[in-house]
């Protein structure tokens, strides 16, 4: 199988700091992959590595099976990119940005670009440098969508946008994925966007990929189990490898299970507990547990 994005033990060191370490990431075609992590986790670095703008210290990146570090740039044909801060030469007008994309991308769809820019109400003659951050993002997104990408990569697309524009952005992204079956990767530090739009999720923390899975699988694998064992038959649940954390309130055990919940539930059932119930944990609680398990402070993870 060819993955839309595949990285193999990717590492990047910048000035002695390991910004990304040993990231092995696979995104199937058609997935909406949300990359989440606190500021400074290495999300932008990873994205630049994926695009081949930066060279990895070790490992490699494949886009649809082709190396991303490509002297001809052909590997990025069909890969749209919306940077966190769009930068254009000072004398570029919106028209010029559009023209650049038209010249560079083979699948350019002028009608779509016009329609999107009209939707956002962007003046074509405006200097890009004079636009607000939100408008720059709108120009960037319009151009990226008009290239009819097979893969769309967005670096913090909703960061710093007002709620209306943010909603508009998410709607456009969903539509793009639904219409063109585009594979999408976006980074964010907002769980809310991720939960809405993504069907795959990657958690990046201090350069390491803690988790990379389909949300569906995560719901199957991860559970919060409340259980009251029979007196005298209380097992040492904290020793079970699948259990991330045990909270106790009286005789009630609350177990956070990160993976293979089925197996754990079987074992619990075999012990014939007085009472047990498994619920789906909220994503933000799961993250908190994940970070705690890794021994990290999670105070800077914004769980909005």
């Amino acid at each position, binding site marked *: 199988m060819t993955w839309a994005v595949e990285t193999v033990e990717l590492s990047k060191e910048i000035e002695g700091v390991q910004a990304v370490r040993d990231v092995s990431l696979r995104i199937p075609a058609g997935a909406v992959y949300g990359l989440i992590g606190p500021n400074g986790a290495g999300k932008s670095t990873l994205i630049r590595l994926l695009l081949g703008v930066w060279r990895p210290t070790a490992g490699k990146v494949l886009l649809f099976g082709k190396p991303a570090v490509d002297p001809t740039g052909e590997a990025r044909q069909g890969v749209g990119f919306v940077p966190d801060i769009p930068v254009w*030469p000072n004398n570029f007008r919106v028209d010029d940005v559009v023209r650049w994309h038209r010249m560079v991308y083979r699948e350019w769809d002028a009608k779509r670009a016009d329609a999107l820019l009209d939707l956002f109400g962007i003046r074509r003659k405006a200097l890009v440098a004079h636009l607000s951050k939100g408008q720059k993002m709108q120009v960037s997104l319009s151009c990226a969508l008009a290239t009819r990408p097979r893969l769309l990569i967005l670096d913090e697309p909703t960061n710093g946008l007002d709620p209306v524009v943010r909603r508009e952005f998410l709607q456009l992204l969903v539509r793009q994925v639904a219409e063109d079956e585009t594979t999408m990767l976006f980074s964010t530090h907002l769980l809310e966007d991720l939960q809405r739009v993504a069907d795959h999720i990657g958690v990046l923390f201090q350069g390491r990929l803690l988790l990379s899975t389909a949300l569906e699988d995560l719901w199957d694998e991860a559970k919060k189990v409340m259980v009251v064992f029979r007196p005298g038959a209380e097992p040492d649940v904290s020793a079970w490898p699948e259990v991330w954390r045990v909270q106790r309130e009286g005789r009630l055990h609350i177990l956070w299970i990160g993976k293979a919940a089925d197996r754990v539930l079987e074992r619990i059932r075999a012990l014939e507990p007085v009472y047990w119930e498994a619920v789906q944990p909220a994503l933000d609680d799961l993250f908190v547990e994940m970070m705690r398990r890794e021994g990290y402070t999670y105070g800077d993870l914004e769980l909005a």
Partner: protein
Amino acid sequence: MGIWNWHNAVAWRDWKQNAGMWFMAAGVMSFPVLVRIIAVGLLQSAVLAPGHRTVAVELVRAPSSYALLWVVAAAIFGVAAFWREWSHQGLPAVLAGPVGRRQVVMTKWGMGWLLLQGVLLLNVLVAVLVAVLLGEYEAGWPSYLYWWMSSAVGLSAVYALAFLAGLWTGTPRSTGWTAAFLIFGVHAWIQWMTTLVGRLFSDWLPASAIESLRQWAAYLSVSQYMVRSDLFFNGGSRLVLLAATAVFLGLAVASFDRLPLERMGRAWMFRWAEKAAVAVGGITLFVFAGALGLVMFQLLWQLRLGFGELPPATVRVLLFVSIGGAAVYLAWSLAKWAVRRRYSQV
């Protein structure tokens, strides 16, 4: 679909952002020939004014009269290639698209170089045409040809060096300084340093060695090949410059392939360019401070204390080195303290 040829796109983008600097460079370059001819033609019906009949031929006879401007123009062409990239840091946005690094660097090089050569050719043709019209072409056709060839090759080398300086330094300001130093200043700097040391220890160092070092230093500044007639019309130096241009081009392509563009899209790989600048400054300080200290010591020794003879060379070398070293150490710690202070205040 439209035109999607990347070459056009990169060239168009370069045109869009560099046109201003290119026009400036073309203007500077055309000043000696085009502007003078136009001015002469406008101000006094020139063709007959005897003082101006030789206007064009003079250029061939004495290239040094305009060479400095041409070198400056070629340097602007070279520096323009990356100047704006560093000032607005837009290069990562370009490289994130389906554009190859080699294409970007080759297009940048090619655009600037072709414009430079085009403006040069235009100037040469007009100058020759005017000379012929005035009946002043006695310099002979081969000499015009050599003139053009030497200029073309020499300016290519200047352009290449400026291009490389732009690519390696990563900020507009350091691009400018580095290019200026490499093109105009290397030989002068070496000559100052060697002269100073040579004078101080004239009784001890062989004067011929100092002199030959001074002579050789001239070959290090590209601008010298344009300014000095003996080098300018020399076939050998043409070959040297051609080879240098080729090497610089290769270096530029190879290093652009590996350009990391970390830290907000700046060329962070070549931080050693900064270190080299610090080293140049340090050596300069060392020599000047050492020389100043030694001279003052010698004055004291001879005038105040009344000794006729200078102290032995070893003593003076020791003094020179220790005073210079002390000055560098002092400046270094001062700079470190200043940097720390600045950061701690932030």
